[in-house]
């Protein structure tokens, strides 16, 4: 090799192989120990809808600055088997370095630099092929000068409870990996220069799934009923892990119809319940969503988006269900939709969703997607005390009326068995007591009462966040998981005339929207869908059209470089 390899400030490592080969294990070993060594890390996954085989990849970014968006570029590719190189070929550049076992990439390599490392041979020497993951991790960690002691300690923790010989073999594998890495460094002159900070060593690294589950716990969630569906299942799994500690009922229902009716029944009896699903499952929940609208039941719905219609691309990402969430349910009733953009927003918005749902007795959506749920990045803190727990259950008296007409439309919510009153709710139109009615005046009053709550909800809408020059010429708009990719692309462009408006709540739409749009000479929206649904929602609410939509709907999130190029074409 004629020149050395310099990896400066931002390194993109991609692990690619079949499902079941342990890519996720390597991802976890690497990101945790890199973080513990003071590096900013970000990882995201793309994988096929199968348990074994196929080709999946995990991308890890190690960077001097905090980043949390995927890049297309691959600096180092670690193929775990045949087909891996072909799978990511579009992302390869002349600078990409392939590190791995020659037999797994030789036939597919079209002239990329490569270093042959006999990983499985060494793994077998250590004790079996299973140790390949630790060796592969060690190869990379050594490049980043991660202390072997730290890695060994992490392995001890990760495999705690296993036989001591297994732990020792992993540590042996780590040492072998380090030695091997040193050989590579010598022979190939690979220089890594990414800044570390002692502050980062003490940060927290987590993915969207865990942040959402912990946010739900912070919000007082004590009941979840669900039916497994990618990419939402991890929420229930995570809550189940914590269920004994916090007293959470976790029930796998026979279908999403049952799940949602259980969730509403649970709220009725005094729980704080969560429904978590993806598009197809939510389709089955829609009937009961309308029930929540009619009986004014609070309900928190986590809708984890994936590409549809129908089964679509089960393990991929999209923002295609904004309208579905917005217009779901027959009839007219208020709701709120949160669209968190990173780990912190997922945590705090989920916590907040339980208070908001309870306060106004409405459905509150948390709209995520596969990409944000399964991406990790390091954060400084999550504080469950930042948002105060709010309780709105009323002790009833003898004359209690569940739907008492009030000035602001909110009737104090009692629950059965708490107080001397009776709590009657009905999916039919009902009178103040909750009994069936067909009285047209009562009907009108009840519709008005339910919709009146929107006035108050409107006053509590979370402001969009403006990033960049407030005297912008071009305004970029995005929501949800595109938050960080837009931020980074704009920072790279570095134009003073551009600002970015991020919405973490898309409905009700914040009242400042029209003014923000008015100030711009050009507006651009970035969405992971084919029809620019948020632009249409903005048009519907403000009468103003967005000038340009940058859309992606192939099942993958935007890459920084890709978005940067598209924005450059369109910025004034």
């Amino acid at each position, binding site marked *: 090799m004629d020149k050395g390899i310099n990896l400066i400030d931002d390194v993109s490592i991609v692990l690619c192989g079949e499902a079941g080969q342990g890519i996720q294990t390597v991802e976890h070993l690497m990101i945790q120990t890199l973080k513990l060594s003071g590096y900013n890390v970000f990882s995201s996954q793309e994988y096929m809808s199968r348990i074994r085989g196929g080709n999946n990849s995990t991308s890890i970014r190690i960077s001097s600055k905090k980043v949390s968006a995927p890049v297309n570029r691959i600096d180092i590719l670690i193929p775990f088997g045949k087909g891996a190189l072909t799978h990511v070929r579009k992302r390869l550049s002349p600078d990409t370095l392939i590190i791995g076992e020659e037999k797994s990439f030789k036939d597919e390599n079209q002239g990329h630099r490569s270093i042959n490392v006999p990983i499985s041979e060494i793994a077998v020497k250590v004790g079996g092929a299973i140790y390949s993951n630790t060796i592969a991790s060690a190869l990379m960690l050594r490049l980043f000068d991660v202390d072997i002691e730290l890695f060994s300690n992490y392995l001890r923790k990760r495999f705690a409870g296993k036989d001591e010989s297994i732990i020792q073999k992993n540590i042996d594998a780590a040492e072998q990996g380090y030695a091997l890495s040193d050989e590579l460094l010598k022979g190939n002159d690979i220089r890594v220069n990414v800044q570390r900070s002692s502050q980062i060593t003490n940060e927290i690294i987590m993915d969207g799934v865990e942040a959402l589950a912990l946010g739900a716990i912070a919000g007082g969630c004590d009941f979840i009923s669900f039916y497994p569906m990618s990419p939402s299942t991890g929420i229930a799994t995570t809550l189940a892990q914590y269920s004994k500690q916090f007293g959470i*009922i976790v029930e796998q229902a026979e279908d999403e*119809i049952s799940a949602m009716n259980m969730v509403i029944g649970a709220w*009725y009896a005094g729980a704080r319940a969560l429904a978590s699903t993806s598009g197809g499952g939510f389709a089955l929940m829609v*009937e009961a969503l309308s029930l929540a609208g009619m009986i004014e039941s609070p309900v928190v719905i986590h809708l984890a988006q994936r590409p549809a219609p129908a089964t679509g691309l089960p393990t991929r990402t999209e923002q295609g269900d904004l309208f579905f969430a917005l217009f779901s349910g027959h009839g007219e009733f208020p709701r709120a939709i949160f669209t968190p953009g990173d780990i912190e927003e997922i945590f705090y918005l989920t916590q907040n969703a339980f208070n908001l749902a309870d306060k106004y007795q409405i459905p509150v959506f948390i709209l995520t997607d596969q990409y944000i749920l399964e991406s990790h990045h390091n954060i400084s803190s999550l504080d469950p005390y930042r948002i105060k727990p709010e309780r709105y259950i009323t002790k009833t008296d003898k004359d209690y009326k569940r739907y008492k007409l009030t000035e602001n439309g909110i009737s104090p919510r009692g629950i059965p068995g708490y107080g001397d009153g009776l709590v009657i709710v009905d999916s*039919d139109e009902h009178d103040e007591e909750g009994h069936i009615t067909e009285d047209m005046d009562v009907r009108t009053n009840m519709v008005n009462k339910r919709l009146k709550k929107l006035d108050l909800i409107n006053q509590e809408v979370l402001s969009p966040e403006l990033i960049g020059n407030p005297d912008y010429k071009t305004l970029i708009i995005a929501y949800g998981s595109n938050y960080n990719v837009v931020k980074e692309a704009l920072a790279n462009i570095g134009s003073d005339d551009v600002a970015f408006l991020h919405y973490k709540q898309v409905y009700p739409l914040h009242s400042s929207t029209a003014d923000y749009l008015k100030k711009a000479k050009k507006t651009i929206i970035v969405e992971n869908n084919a029809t620019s649904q948020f632009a249409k929602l903005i048009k519907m609410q403000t009468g103003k059209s967005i000038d340009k939509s940058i859309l992606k709907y192939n099942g993958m999130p935007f890459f920084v470089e890709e978005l940067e190029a598209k924005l450059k074409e369109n910025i004034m």
Partner: protein
Amino acid sequence: MDTKSFDMENLDIAWCPGCGNYGILSAIKRALAELNIEPTQLAMVSGIGQAAKAPHYYRCNLFNGLHGRSLPAATAIKAVNPSLTVIAESGDGCTYGEGGNHFIHTIRRNPDITNIVHNNMVYGLTKGQASPTSPHELRTPVQIDGVFSEPFNPLAVAISLDASFVARAFAGDIDQTKEIIIKAIQHKGYALVDVFQPCVTYNKINTFRWFKEKTYYLDESYDPHDRVEAFKKAIDTESYALGVLYINPKPTFEEKLTVYSHSNEPLFKRERDLNMLSNIIESKRGI
């Protein structure tokens, strides 16, 4: 307790004169009074249909939800507050048709709830179409040549799923129906009471007289713990057994929930331990 505790004023009942629902209504009120269940401690859950309106006609907490969906809601209510008496009351179309999947899985789950099903073998509220339990001979404006599908046998299905408690009653006999409902409420676990009921408007086959002639009560010699015998009774469609066909004591859904392993407090009385959550989050900083 007096049944007056459950009486409501100014009732405008939506049922036809002579409807079997009236008998079931009386039997339920009497059973509740006899068991001294305070209306405030009772949560009735119903679906949609003429039967599902029943809990609007007596004093109780009521969750009148969606067609077919009473059982999931009832299961959750009982799970969240096990101190409540929870009864799901609805018709045959609601429970066995629209809610068929929930019927199966609620039996498997075994929450400590009572499920009273008004079974008149026809759809009343939508004006006379076949229900899952309609006999082949029933001709309707839709099933003009009679009903092709095999009538659903709720008792046989429940016993095949090893349900905790399976009974059948007849709305024409309020005393006996009340007795059966009392046993069902007292039973710990899911208790099905399928109540035969004439529909005087839409079902001219399964009339009051038909039920009288086709049914008989199980006597004291019958052992409801014998599953095979119970199944034999359940599939006998020549003459229909009334009474408790099957009892299978087993742990309930709520008993298995770990939230109640250290405390019986209903969930709404508990406070979230944010300190513990904070500690969990903080523990993620180090190795």
